[in-house]
């Protein structure tokens, strides 16, 4: 009996959801936090145990399939609820449970003052369940269950503060945009069902080479449709518009769902289906171009945003673009590697940003920050690590994965995409250090004694100002003045500890992917993934000198971006202002995100809205309501006639009975 019991990994968060629903009102905040974090922590432990079991096996046998039950059976077509652990899902499940656990712990601090504390963890655990189902499923339909589940939780959590109109709007937008993608994904899966008669990965991949001609129309169409699903979930052009708006949700949600885990589901799906995608070179080309275009476009928008979370959101979109163009050039392993490192440093960036926002009493505008380095030392240090990691400076995690992607793009001859990636890397380094400098360096641009520009906090100020007169040292005893002003200070331990853990991961997380030219042969990561991805078409071996050249180039561009950021925002802010004025039109275009939302509004949203309004007025109000009301009116008329007979006089009834009897009597007499 050496079964790792895969089902228990998603079941634990689900059990926590059930317990929270049933008994949450009696648990109190501590109990709820303990339950939620405990379930995810246990899921992480179970995942580690399962992965260790997997790793102990020989390379060919690294695949554990556990069938829980048959979901349904229609004729020859049957779908099982069964879980698959192989090297690919192992990475995903570790990242999801590991980062998820840290974010759960962090949330206990960040959400401590929220009145809907319990609901928050309910949704968060539900999300963990759906996400784990997604990555552990061994067929497309079960994956789709998780896929929709995470979409639902994303919607619920974006609109978590539902009393805010912008939050509910953002939630709806995310849900609807995702639906478009999901529709494509579902159609793709239906293609697979129609042609292969199965949704099980193993069977689909085994039969695909016999059923489809490589590069044929069917496989191209099917994979393109699946990619449409990926663009929705993973925020790629043209469906990326929901992700920046999703920042309306609480910051831990942005970290968990909209940076580390859910948005990488599309990448995971593509990598998981690499057998199919490799048979459709046209699709791969499309993916590479879309990925590169997204990486570039989002990076340009990120350059000029002022909301700390929005910068990170566009950065996420951009980094997801990198993952996709890695897949597009056939470097699926590099894509998953970047998913992993990105999960570490982007979760850290978001959590750090959350810590800043928490410390700044819900101020998100970077123009009103500055000089936080001394006030929030842990947040500052960890954020700096993450920023270096995403900028791509060795030996931090982001460097290894980004460099591998760029090298693979170069090696496969996608020079245009390589150039786009490089350009994106400059901008990444620039906007990330712009964020860092604006937030942590320079002089504070807010009232350091806790008076800050929020209108809603104005009434609370008076009390705190007098309190402040006692001196700053007296502050630690009254806990955190969440949202009420008070001087900026470091966040509590349950927020800084996850930050520190993620900071360590952001440094060392990339080392497992160190390959040529530093070591002989494949990197550890590459060898781990080999049973799933195969050794792949590694025909394009680069010379060692080229490898080093590429690395040097990517470090150089990163350094250039960092230098520019420091120069423009720390040393001489006049440069930034001058640039604003010089390229006013460009700046406006970027600031308004290329007016894509407005364009979609005019081309898609508004026409649909108008058409729906007309349909409502005609079809719903006239036809449907007409039929329903018509039935009512008809019955009313008939009963008005029948009512004439019901006089209430017994005599009348007796008369009718008599007449009836007479009629029967006559009838029988005549026959």
């Amino acid at each position, binding site marked *: 009996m050496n079964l790792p019991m895969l089902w228990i990994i998603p079941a634990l968060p689900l059990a926590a959801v059930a317990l929270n629903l049933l008994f949450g009102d009696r648990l109190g905040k501590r109990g709820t936090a303990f339950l939620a974090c405990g379930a995810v922590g246990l899921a992480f432990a179970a995942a580690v145990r399962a992965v260790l079991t997997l790793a102990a096996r020989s390379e060919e046998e690294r695949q554990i399939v556990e069938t829980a039950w048959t979901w349904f059976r229609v004729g020859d077509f049957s779908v099982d609820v069964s879980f698959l652990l192989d090297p690919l899902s192992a990475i995903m499940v570790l990242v999801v449970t590991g980062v998820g656990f840290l974010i759960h712990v962090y949330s206990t601090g960040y959400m401590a003052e929220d009145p809907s504390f319990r609901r928050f963890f309910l949704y968060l655990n539900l999300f963990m369940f759906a996400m784990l189902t997604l990555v552990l499923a061994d067929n497309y339909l079960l994956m789709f269950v998780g896929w929709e589940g995470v979409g639902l939780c994303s919607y619920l959590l974006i609109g978590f503060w539902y009393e805010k109109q912008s939050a509910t709007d953002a939630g709806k937008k995310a849900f609807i945009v995702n639906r478009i993608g999901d529709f494509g994904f579902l159609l793709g899966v239906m293609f697979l069902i129609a042609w292969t008669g199965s949704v099980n990965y193993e069977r689909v991949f085994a039969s695909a080479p016999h059923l489809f001609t490589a590069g044929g129309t069917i496989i191209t169409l099917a994979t393109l449709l699946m990619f449409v699903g990926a663009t929705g979930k993973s925020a790629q052009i043209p469906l990326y518009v929901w992700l920046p708006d999703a920042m309306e949700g609480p910051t831990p949600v942005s970290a968990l769902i909209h940076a580390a885990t859910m948005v990488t589901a599309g990448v995971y799906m593509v990598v998981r289906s690499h057998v199919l995608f490799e048979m459709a070179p046209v699709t791969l080309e499309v993916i590479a171009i879309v990925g590169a275009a997204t990486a570039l476009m989002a990076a340009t928008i990120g350059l000029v945003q002022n909301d700390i979370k929005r910068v990170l959101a566009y950065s996420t979109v951009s980094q997801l673009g990198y993952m996709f163009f890695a897949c597009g050039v056939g470097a699926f392993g590099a894509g998953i590697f970047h998913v992993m490192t990105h999960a570490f440093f982007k979760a850290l960036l978001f959590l750090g940003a959350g810590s800043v926002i928490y410390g700044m009493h819900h101020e998100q505008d970077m123009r009103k920050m500055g000089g936080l380095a001394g006030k929030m030392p842990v947040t500052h240090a960890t954020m700096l690590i993450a920023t270096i990691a995403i900028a791509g400076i060795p030996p931090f995690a982001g460097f290894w994965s980004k460099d591998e992607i760029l090298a693979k793009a170069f090696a496969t001859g996608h020079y245009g995409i390589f150039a786009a990636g490089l350009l994106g890397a400059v901008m990444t380094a620039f906007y990330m250090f712009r964020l860092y400098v604006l937030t942590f360096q320079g002089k504070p641009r807010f009232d350091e004694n806790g008076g800050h520009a929020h209108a809603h906090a104005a009434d609370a100020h008076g009390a705190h100002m007098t309190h402040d007169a006692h001196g700053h040292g007296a502050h630690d005893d009254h806990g955190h003045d969440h949202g009420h002003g008070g001087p900026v200070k470091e966040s509590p331990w349950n927020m800084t500890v996850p930050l520190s853990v993620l900071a360590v991961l952001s440094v060392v997380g990339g080392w497992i992917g160190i390959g040529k030219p530093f070591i002989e042969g494949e990197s550890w990561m590459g060898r781990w993934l080999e049973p799933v991805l195969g050794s792949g078409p590694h025909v394009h071996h680069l010379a060692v000198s080229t490898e080093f050249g590429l690395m040097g180039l990517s470090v150089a561009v990163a350094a250039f971006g960092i230098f520019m950021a420091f120069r423009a925002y720390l040393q001489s802010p006049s440069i930034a202002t001058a640039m604003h004025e010089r390229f006013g039109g460009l700046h406006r275009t970027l600031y308004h995100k290329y007016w894509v939302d407005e364009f979609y509004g005019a081309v898609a949203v508004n026409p649909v809205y108008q058409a729906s309004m007309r349909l409502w007025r005609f079809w719903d109000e006239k036809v449907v309501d007409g039929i329903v009301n018509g039935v009512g009116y008809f019955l009313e008329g008939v009963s008005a006639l029948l009512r004439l007979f*019901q*006089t209430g006089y017994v005599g009348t009834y007796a008369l009718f009975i*008599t007449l009836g009897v007479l009629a029967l009597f006559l009838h029988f007499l005549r026959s």
Partner: protein
Amino acid sequence: MIPTEWALALSAVLFVIGVVGVLVRRNALVIFMSIELMLNAANLAFVAFARQQNSLDGQIFVFFVMTVAAAEVAVGLAIIVNLFRLRETVFVDEINLLKG
């Protein structure tokens, strides 16, 4: 011997009197008595036929009818008494709450 037709004719006449009584009278008690009249008209027809057929079946039926009639009187009178207590009237055309 009295021909069967005569007995039947009498039965028919009694029955029609009963029907007309039910239809035209307003007093619940009188309506009740009219119903009894109809029942007994039927009894008379039973007996007449039983005699003509030389069979006891008809006569046995009469006993059943009388039993039913007795039960009906017991229930019916109870209803009428209660009705009177409630509404202080036994005139059926004043009891028309079920008018549609």
